[in-house]
């Protein structure tokens, strides 16, 4: 066995950003949202991620602005801590240890030094019963503080953060669970409970979904499962409470929010329409439709200028002045399962998988950013639960990335399967895929596998699809037969079958000269040129699960895995079994750039990874217990730049990277230690500071600072060429200003240190001489100089920068002189 000391499995991007309500900062410039184990700070104007607040060791369950300091934010996590951050700088300030997993966090300006968290009942941690706990934050200078003063406020609350809210400046807290609304008044220390009937007459469901409280008046808005919104008033009396009902949503209201001034109520749900109700004039509503997918949370900026909705497709939309979508922050869309394989787009090198219903997403792995969604189905998506819609189930790219094939299916009833095979051509002009051919009902039953011929030099592109109807079909691009002005389109070239068995897998050899199709336990090998059945290979007794040709020097090998825990390797030159080993391989994968193959083996609840070459059955690398559960999707993605690792165990990662999806839809990858270090270093260097406003102070100080850093960089760069200059600059830069000698004294030394090349000096001297010569000439030259002045300043070279400064300095002196001369 080969050791795997320095190769680790890490999360690589694509975490959820829609799990909790996002928070907009006081100045509306940043957006904070919980994303996996960290809090992400996005700029609301540029959609860029500014900071990653890392520190939690479990999923972050809530983010909240510190009500007493608007530049700080609390975050709570299932790791039983609450952390305080400075989000503008991305600095971790403090950790409060609660001792229980926290599922939500609340705070109010009226309760200083207290935060309210929802934890499981104190007596047993694993129970499903939650309570609201007030935590008095101890005043301490330490980084790590244990919060001991816990006092239960409301017991038996919902763990859903939307089901609770502070009202009227923190006078009361309203919490809903099941069919009860509970209001706790802090002054009276009293709880009122308002129950609703199980079901009203029309069969609607009354269960509370979310709660929002008016900040100025005594009013609580609650959203219900049947789409109704109830506005509760006069609830400070147990008996005389009233409520009015608003109804627009056709399915459950998932989020409610009052604007800070309390003039509007926002609601959203599955319909993906943001509804804006006028407070006290509820018949007037504004709609913002077509937000893409179901709204899960709504947040409003403290000044009420920005709304922000998070959606079920891992997206946050920022809405400006309540009518216009100004920014969309989109994460990797992950449904319950990935129907398509993971693929890499050969052009953009992005990861491709199905995302939003009926769409394919192109996700950049390097930048951890969704590039774009391609609408495959091209049908209006109806936001209604329980509706069977078209879904993308298969996709394939050809070797050059100029063709893509997709299969969409809709299976409303068992008997009726609607299938469409679509072929997309890459359009150079628009840089996206354009629909070329739609084949409706390409097969009579579900398509099991699909692959393009990967030979790069072949004249015609060929696609093979296998289906449960017992046939496999080859599709080929053919020129238009008639003269209507349409380009080439795809048509069926060959239909093959083998003893009426069901084909499961198909695979082209690297040069495209062979096609292997597995029919249950038999592998048939066909010649695509003449469509002759060349040979059959078989390894009974179980059906073939995966089929894969070797690459490069191993292209004579065909590998297959069977359901009976067997990995076989056939040699196609001798048409015989080369080797086989007993392994329960759940996924077999070939690296397109090297000879390596990866096999994920499901074994006793976990998955092991083996990397090997088909020519020898000894693994190059193996990793035990990569993750829990089965790995069914994985992909080798090419690296942008090769790694130079010479260790045997990590050489397979040099040219491409292996990504895989776990059972819980986490995207993981393998990294080496060296790579991680490099990544960390690069992230430290790249501090994006694009969102800092251009105040006069910044202009003054920022420029100065930039120069300084550039100086430092240049000095470090030129240190080996002119060692004496670095010393001078260092001295100049490191000495405090008040102990420095006068500038005129330093100047000559400084200039001396900068005289590097001969040409530069001459030019400098010439300029100087010119200026000395005569005043009039100097006036002219000055005017000439003026426009050319910004150029050297812009240049990144620090030497020229300082030179320009010097020149300016001298000119000022000259001007001074001329001015006094004029006086005289």
């Amino acid at each position, binding site marked *: 066995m080969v050791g795997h000391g320095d190769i680790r499995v890490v999360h690589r991007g694509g975490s959820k950003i829609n799990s909790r309500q996002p928070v907009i900062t006081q100045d509306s410039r940043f957006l904070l949202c919980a994303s996996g184990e960290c809090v992400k700070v996005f700029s609301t104007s540029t959609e860029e991620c500014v900071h990653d607040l890392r520190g939690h060791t479990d999923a972050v369950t809530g983010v909240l602005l510190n009500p007493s300091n608007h530049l700080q934010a609390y975050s709570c996590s299932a790791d039983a801590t609450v952390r305080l951050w400075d989000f503008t700088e991305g600095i971790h300030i403090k950790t409060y240890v609660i001792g229980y997993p926290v599922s939500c966090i609340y705070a109010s300006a009226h309760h200083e030094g207290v935060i309210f968290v929802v934890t499981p009942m104190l007596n047993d941690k694993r129970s499903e019963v939650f309570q609201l706990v007030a935590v008095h934050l101890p005043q301490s200078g330490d980084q790590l503080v244990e919060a001991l003063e816990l006092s239960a406020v409301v017991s038996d609350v919902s763990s859903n953060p939307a089901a609770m809210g502070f009202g009227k400046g923190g006078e009361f807290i309203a919490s809903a669970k099941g069919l009860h609304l509970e209001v706790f008044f802090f002054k009276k220390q009293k709880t009122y409970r308002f129950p609703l009937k199980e079901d009203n007459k029309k069969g609607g469901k009354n269960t509370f979904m979310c709660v929002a409280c008016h900040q100025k008046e005594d009013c609580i808005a609650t959203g219900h499962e049947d789409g109704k919104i109830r506005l509760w008033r006069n609830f400070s009396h147990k008996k005389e409470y009233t409520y009015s009902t608003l109804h627009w949503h056709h399915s459950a209201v998932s989020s409610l929010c009052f604007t800070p001034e309390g003039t509007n109520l926002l609601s959203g749900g599955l319909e993906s329409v943001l509804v804006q109700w006028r407070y006290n004039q509820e018949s007037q509503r504004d709609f913002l439709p*077509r*937000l*893409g997918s179901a709204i899960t949370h709504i947040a409003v900026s403290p000044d009420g200028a920005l709304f922000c909705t998070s959606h079920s497709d891992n997206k946050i939309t920022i809405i400006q002045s309540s009518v216009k*979508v100004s920014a969309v922050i989109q994460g990797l869309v992950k449904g319950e399962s990935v129907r398509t394989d993971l693929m890499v787009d050969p052009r953009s090198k992005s990861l491709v998988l199905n995302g939003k219903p009926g769409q394919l997403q192109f996700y950049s792995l390097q930048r951890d950013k969704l590039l774009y969604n391609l*609408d495959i189905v*091209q*049908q*209006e998506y*109806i936001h*209604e639960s329980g*509706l069977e*819609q*078209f879904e993308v189930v298969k996709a394939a790219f050809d070797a050059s990335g100029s063709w893509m094939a997709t299969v969409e299916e*809709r299976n409303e009833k068992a*008997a*009726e399967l609607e299938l469409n095979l679509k072929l997309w051509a890459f359009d150079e002009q628009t840089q996206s895929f354009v629909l070329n051919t739609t084949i*409706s*009902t390409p097969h*009579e039953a579900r398509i099991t596998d699909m692959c393009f011929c990967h030979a790069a030099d072949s004249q015609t592109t060929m696609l093979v699809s296998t289906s449960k109807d017992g*046939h496999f*079909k080859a599709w080929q691009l053919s020129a238009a*037969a*008639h*003269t*209507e002005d349409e380009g080439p389109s795809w*048509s*069926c070239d*060959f*239909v*093959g*079958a*083998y*003893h009426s068995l069901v084909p499961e897998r198909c695979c082209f050899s690297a040069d495209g000269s062979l096609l292997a199709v597995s029919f249950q336990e038999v592998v048939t090998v066909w010649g695509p040129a003449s469509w*002759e*059945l060349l040979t059959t290979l078989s390894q009974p007794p179980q059906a073939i699960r995966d089929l894969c040709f070797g690459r490069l020097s191993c292209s004579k090998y065909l590998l297959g895995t069977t359901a009976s825990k067997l990995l076989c390797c056939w040699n196609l030159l001798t048409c015989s079994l080369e080797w086989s080993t007993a392994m329960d391989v759940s996924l077999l994968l070939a690296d397109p750039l090297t000879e390596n193959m990866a096999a994920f083996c499901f074994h006793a609840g976990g998955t092991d990874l083996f990397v090997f070459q088909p020519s020898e059955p000894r693994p190059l690398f193996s990793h035990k217990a990569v993750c829990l559960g089965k790995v069914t999707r994985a992909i080798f993605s090419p690296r942008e730049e090769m790694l130079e690792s010479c260790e045997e165990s990590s050489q397979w990662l040099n040219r491409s990277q292996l990504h895989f999806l776990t059972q819980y839809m986490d995207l993981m990858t393998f990294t080496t230690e060296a790579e991680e270090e490099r990544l960390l270093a690069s992230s430290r260097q790249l501090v994006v500071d694009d969102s800092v406003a251009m105040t006069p102070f910044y202009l003054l100080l920022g420029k100065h600072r930039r120069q300084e850093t550039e100086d430092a960089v240049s000095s470090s760069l030129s240190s080996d060429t002119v060692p004496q200059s670095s010393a001078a600059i260092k001295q100049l830069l490191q000495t405090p200003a008040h102990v420095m000698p006068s500038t005129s004294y330093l100047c000559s030394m400084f200039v001396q240190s900068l005289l590097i090349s001969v040409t530069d000096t001459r030019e400098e001297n010439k300029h100087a001489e010119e200026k000395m010569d005569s005043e009039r000439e100097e006036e002219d030259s000055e005017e000439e100089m003026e426009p050319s002045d910004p150029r050297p300043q812009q240049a990144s070279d620090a030497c020229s920068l300082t030179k320009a400064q010097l020149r300016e300095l001298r000119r000022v002196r000259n001007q001074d002189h001329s001015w006094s001369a004029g006086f005289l």
Partner: protein
Amino acid sequence: MASFKPTKVQVYPKLGEKVTQDTLYWKNYKAPLHIKEFGAITNIDFSPVAPHNFAVTAFTRIHIYGPFSQEPVKSFTRFKDTAYCGRFRSDGQLLVAGCEDSVVRLFDVSGKVALRMFKGHTKAVHVADFISDRYQILTGSDDYTCRLWDLPNATELNTYQEHTDYIRCGVASKLNRDLFITGSYDHTLKLFDARVDKSVMTMDHGQPVESLLLYPSEGLLVSAGGRNVKVWDLLKGGQPLVSLKNHHKTVTSLCLSSSGQRLLSASLDRHVKVYNTTNYKVVHNFDYAASILSLALAPDDESIVVGMTNSILSVKHRKSLEDSKEISGQQRRRPLYRVFVKGKNHVPKQDDYLVSKPVKQHLAKYDKQLKKFNVTKALDTALETWTRHRKPEITVAVMKELDRRGTLKNALAGRDEQALARLLNFLIGNVVDPRFAPVLVTAAEMILDIYRSVIGQSPVVDRQLLRLQELLEKEIDYQQDLLEVMGMLDTMFASSFPRMEVPCPGISRANGLAGGDGITSRPQIQAT
């Protein structure tokens, strides 16, 4: 913010022939002009000089028509019996014609009486042509001989007695003054050289030869006889090049298009077929009312003239540019050019800034209703008379979309007698169409479910339901028959194909889509 995506209307491949460049070219003729002659029209010949009059030989007359005249500009009637093969000389001045009474007559195109009479044949002369030196005439006759005549003094120069049956066609070379070819009912074509006294080449056509045609280069010879059209390579010693069998009755006439790229053949089966001369595939087809005896194309393909057995001469003129302009003139009821360029040619100044206006999306009526979730109204708009009759695919697409949204039942319910009758009418018209069956069968099931309680209340609806039932029963019978036929065919294919090593079904090269439709739609229909 995504915009509304309109309903996808499935585009079905157009049935029937595909539009090619040839179809466009050969369709670009005006409606035919019919001229009644006195008898079956056996020959049509165009004058080689402008204005390209043509001589039509029919019964005992030869009429000469101008290119656009409906009446003959000239007629030769001095024949004792049926005239044959009126042909112009290459200068268009003289015309020669054979006759049933074995006399060959030569006419001046401007005169009326025959200039010369060539007597010598003993039976009807069906072939007469000028040799390319313009002073000799070639004739072929039913007395199995073909002769050369001297034009100035009307003497016979030579007689060739090689054929053993009637000579019914012949053509003289236009490049060589000594060569001519005759075709006979003895199935042979013979190439004669006037410098020697016998044929220099003999080709066997296999059927009585009816017509001959030389290519302009005279390297290829086309012969028609029986149902076959054969092309011979004269430069390779009369080697057969292609044999075409596209007619199902005797081919009577041959003709080349002006470019030499297309070959036309006319037959007694009332068709004129156009072949591509590079691959000899039929690229176009004309239908006529009666069996065709003769065919000619004007220079530059300006008109197609066809003579038929029912003594009707059909003349089709090519549409001129003015005509096509007229059509485009009709199309120009659209907004003026300046409406389109309005503001487009504005050159922005330096400090202008662009206010972008969202592009208004145009939606079809039914899409507008669908956008508002008005399902019943959407279906109503899709069922409007014009759409229902002309574009049933739109109606079906809307139904499919409603079904996908799960609201088809709501849209179908709550209709009065008239609306329901309209709906049922549409179903009866289209439910057996294999393109629409999957959607309409679902809709039909829903209609029956919804309106089960009102059956018997309206005679109109009841009648339509009965019609629907009949239609479905008939369709099921058809499907059963089809399946039987397919079964028979399968056994035939299986037995006729040689046993291959590769055990894949015989029909595996077929697309499989067309065959599949019939099978898949059947159980759905039974379910109703």
